[in-house]
């Protein structure tokens, strides 16, 4: 049963080819598995990275949100401050205009005199002192002095009608040259006074400031709600 050489060779070649083919098939299977593993791994890594990027962007979005709300609240603050400043400005304007008007007041002698009398009476009420000294502006000297008697009269009248008492009060003008500052004008930059008087005890310990400046300030303070209602109410 000896096969001759050619036959043997042929059979060997056949077996070789067969084994080679089997090997190629196995290589094919390994490739297919590798392809699948590769795809799974790729998918996994892509998912991981996507997740990472998603988190990153979430963080960024949150940060932007925070920044936005911060800038929003600071803008609101700024606006509020501006509004306050503007309101303040309005009050300053009111003060200025009123001051200007008041500054003209002393020119009307009649009215001014009556005013001074009332101011003195009011101050006397507050002070309840037997001896007071009045300070006034240099320019008002004459008017003020002429008011003294009338003022005291009025004061006593009022006391009698209301409380049925009489008080003796002595008014004196301050002659020590300690006048209140002059009326405001474009020349003098320093202090100025719109008018009115300051009463004090002889020992200068008790003072009652009844100048028009102070009264203006008080008036504005007192009328602040009204002013706000007039100027700032939207309806």
């Amino acid at each position, binding site marked *: 049963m000896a096969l001759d050489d050619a036959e043997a060779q042929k059979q060997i070649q*056949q*077996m070789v*080819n*067969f*084994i080679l*083919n*089997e090997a*190629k*098939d*196995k*290589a*094919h*299977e390994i*490739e*297919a*598995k590798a*392809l*699948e593993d590769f*795809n799974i791994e790729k998918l996994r890594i892509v998912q991981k990275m996507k997740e990472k990027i998603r988190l990153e962007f979430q963080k960024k979005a949150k940060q932007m949100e925070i920044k936005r709300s911060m800038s929003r609240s600071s803008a609101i603050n700024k606006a509020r401050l501006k509004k306050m400043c503007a309101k303040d400005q309005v009050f300053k304007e009111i003060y200025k205009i009123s001051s200007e008007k008041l500054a003209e007041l002393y020119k009307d002698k009649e009215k001014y005199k009556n005013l001074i009398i009332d101011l003195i009476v009011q101050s006397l009420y507050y002070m309840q002192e037997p001896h007071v000294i009045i300070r006034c502006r240099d320019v008002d000297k004459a008017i003020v002095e002429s008011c003294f008697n009338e003022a005291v009269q009025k004061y006593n009248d009022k006391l009698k009608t209301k409380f049925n008492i009489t008080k003796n009060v002595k008014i004196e003008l301050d002659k020590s040259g300690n006048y209140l500052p002059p009326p405001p004008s474009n020349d003098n930059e320093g202090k100025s006074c719109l008018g009115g008087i300051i009463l004090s005890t002889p020992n200068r310990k008790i003072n009652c400031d009844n100048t028009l400046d102070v009264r203006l300030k008080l008036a504005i303070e007192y009328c602040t709600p009204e002013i706000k209602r007039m100027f700032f109410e939207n309806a």
Partner: protein
Amino acid sequence: MANNNDGISVITKFVDTEQKNEILHDSILNHMPCYDKYKEINILSAEDVDLLKKFHDLSKKEKFEYFKENNEIVIILFNCLQTDFNIHLIQYVLTIFYEIIRNDGSSYSYVLSVLDSENLYSYLMKLCTHRDTYISDKSSFLLSGSFCYNNNNFTETQIKDFILKIDFFNITEEGKMDIYINILKIDYYRQDIYELEEFLIILTKNLELSNNNANKQYKSVFCVWLLTFKDSFIKKLYKCNIITLVMNLFKKCKVEKIIRVCLNIIKNILHMDDCFEIIVDNNIIQTLTVLQYDKWRDNDIYDNIVQLLHKLDQRVKNYSNFERYCHELANGKLKWSILHTEKFWLENVMQFEKNQFKAIEQLAEIIKKYIECVINKGDAKNNNEEIDSVTVAVACFDIGEFARLYPNGKKICQNFNIKENIMILIAMKDRDIVREALLCAQKIMLNNWQSVSSTK
């Protein structure tokens, strides 16, 4: 010895088919196409023809190396695929490409980097409908392979178009399966291939045991393996009974490469419960243990088998437990499975005392009902709760095991009047039932005096 003869005959059949292919390839390659004719008609230039002639004279191995290192030969060869050329030339070129790719799968990337993919697609698509089946086979194989390895070079419409036209190509069934294999490697198109009408038909046909063509069986099993990577497909395959077919094939087949791929399939499907049931029902574990001792040409198979056995053992431990037994009992139909083996009973016998031996009571019920059914069969046709003989046989076995292994088993069986019923069963017609009943009676009545004396 009979087994070996079968094995050898299968292998020789295998070798035969492979040989035929080899012979065909060689005959094509050995015959040099008539390049000169083309030089005369001026389709090919003179240098090209010289290069082609030189290429032809190289040995196979040298051809492969030359191909890898020189782009021009690739381009020139590819240009020869235009259909104006005669059949032999086209066959020649396609065979060269085929051999090179079979030899080294990474050649796809190389070829695709050299050639223009649009041209490749159009030439090869045209050739897929060529009247010569060899040409259609090879060209569709090459095209589907290019999709698989470099599917970025082709658009989705091109690939889907190709898939839809598969049925119209003039290819052999093996060629079709090669295409399926190639495209099933791409996850995105698995669904498209699965939905092709012919796909399941071809698969089922070739997985039948009666089919003798080992090559086709191998390719079908390969297709199934590629689908088992995704759980959704495992479910679908299970519904179409393909998993069962594969398991049957695995048990009977002796061809090494089919076994190898089947091992991979089992590895992939073991985590699904219903497939695991099939595996267990078909006694694959036993088959694997036997296969361990066979002689395989491929050394890796031994390792694969051992690994798989180990995994299956672990799964089995989780799977066979008392709960499943109760479940099965509640269904009323018992089958032979690992839940009715001595091993199961040895591990789980103490659990049967739960609920005052409810399980044993149920088993006794089954036997009683069956007897009643048989007695009343003549009278009434009231068969809405027919108990089949397998269930009864299994019940007998279980009772016997319980009586034998549980400390007071025999006494407890007395409580349920089992002995009388078993006696009646011995007189039945069904041989399985008779056998099991006899064994059971034996276990109930006899005592293991030696064990009793050793405990004293």
